[in-house]
């Protein structure tokens, strides 16, 4: 079964958010990487880019398909993970740690409250 850490928030579109003050780290879930399998290329948002929640901001390419990644929160990108660009397989092997995508300074921290908790996300993926 998929790993769903209890301390994270989740978007319906399978991104996770780790919030620390007004900074958040974003990546894709274990369930998402498992569905994609064989991630071979990751394209991340530009540094300092302003994102609105729901914006298509990154692309993950598996052998078979390209999938858009949507920003679960609004704000400005403060850091992108170069390691995952150099080694896209990190998305598969470590989706919640070394496979993170970008860090973002939240412009509207209350948005986080409307994201899914781990139990809700679990319910969503088990419903298919």
């Amino acid at each position, binding site marked *: 079964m998929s790993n769903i850490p209890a301390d994270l928030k989740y978007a319906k579109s399978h991104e996770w958010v780790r919030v620390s003050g007004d900074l958040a780290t974003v990546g894709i879930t274990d369930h998402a990487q498992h569905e994609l399998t064989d991630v071979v*290329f990751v394209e991340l948002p530009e540094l300092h880019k302003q994102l609105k929640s729901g914006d298509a901001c990154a692309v993950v390419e598996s052998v*078979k398909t*390209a999938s858009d990644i949507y920003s679960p929160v609004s704000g400005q990108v403060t850091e992108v993970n170069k390691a995952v660009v150099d080694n896209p397989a990190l998305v598969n092997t470590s989706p919640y740690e070394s496979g993170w995508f970008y860090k973002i300074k939240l412009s509207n921290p209350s948005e986080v409250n409307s994201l899914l908790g781990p139990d809700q996300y679990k319910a969503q993926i088990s419903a298919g």
Partner: protein
Amino acid sequence: MKRTPLYAAHQKLGAKLIEFGGWEMPVQYTSITDEHLAVRKAAGIFDISHMGEVSVCGAKAEAFLNQTLTNDLGKLAIGAAQYTLMCNEQGGVIDDLYAYRTGASEFLLIINASRIESDFSWLHSRHAAFDHRNDVILKNISDAMGAVAIQGPRVVDFIDNLSSQPAIGGTMVSRPTQLKKNQIARLQLSITEIWIARTGYTGEDGFEIVAPADSIKAVWNNVLELGRPFGLKPCGLGARDTLRTEVCYPLYGNDLDEETTPIEAGLGFFVSLNKEEFVGRPVLANQKANGVTKKLVAFKMSEKSAPPRPHYPISSAGPKAAKIGEVTSGTQSPSLGIGIGLGYVPPEFAKPQTLIEIEIRGKRAPAIVVPKPIYSRQLIV
């Protein structure tokens, strides 16, 4: 959606299923890359029961087919096979297929799943107009047959264990590994009879088995069991696609269609002008003699990039870059670790080493035209 007789077996193995040509088929069981590399290094088994089978028999079967297909069936001994194409009057490809001579005047055609209806209606209308139609019996046996492909360098280590009996038809070998490339034999397998051919769509050594639909599950299970000690894995259509792309085998619907000729696709070797008249011959002969306006080329991305995908624009390189074509097949190559693909370009851009660019989501990435196949077994030691 249609399901093959192996559908339940795929579900049990945890396959991810997708729609392909009207069929619900496994795209992968664990990972496309793992399955791909299993076939390159050890062995893999694929369900290809979705593919169509046509039986053509009778005293004039050879003459009928030789007027309908581009390759020369006269070259085939009993138990031999060839890759061939079925074209329309304009030389456009209706389908690409394998033709097996299973008896003196008996042929088995293996056709693409997505083309079964088009092919059969074309064959039917040709048959109705054929002078000796009473001497040709044409049967679509697609629903009655199942098929599997068993591919990879270790297959020869276990395939002979399928049966201890010598062949009862086709090429009269005493065991499957005596078959040469493009040969087929009929084997008795417990209570059922099967066809086994040394053919495939992966660029590796291997075999394809055609068996009655109600026996294919027993064949599948038997091969899985025999091959497991040698690293055999069940493989889905995802790996089938990356494997064939690396060796530049065309896929109908991507690289071939009714507006494209075999000569443009680089398949002139399978168009025989030294035989009787056949459909499309005037156009194909003219293209062989005078050249074509587009050619299917293989390319490799020059640097790390997102994988090329079908329909991405191809442009010339340099300051005066202009669109010259479109990608028809593209993927990340699991063997080479870089993006590869096929696409049509004008002949002046078709020479290996020509620099081109692939437009990926609005940005152009450098690529280079390479000789076919992009990957071959000898390349990697």
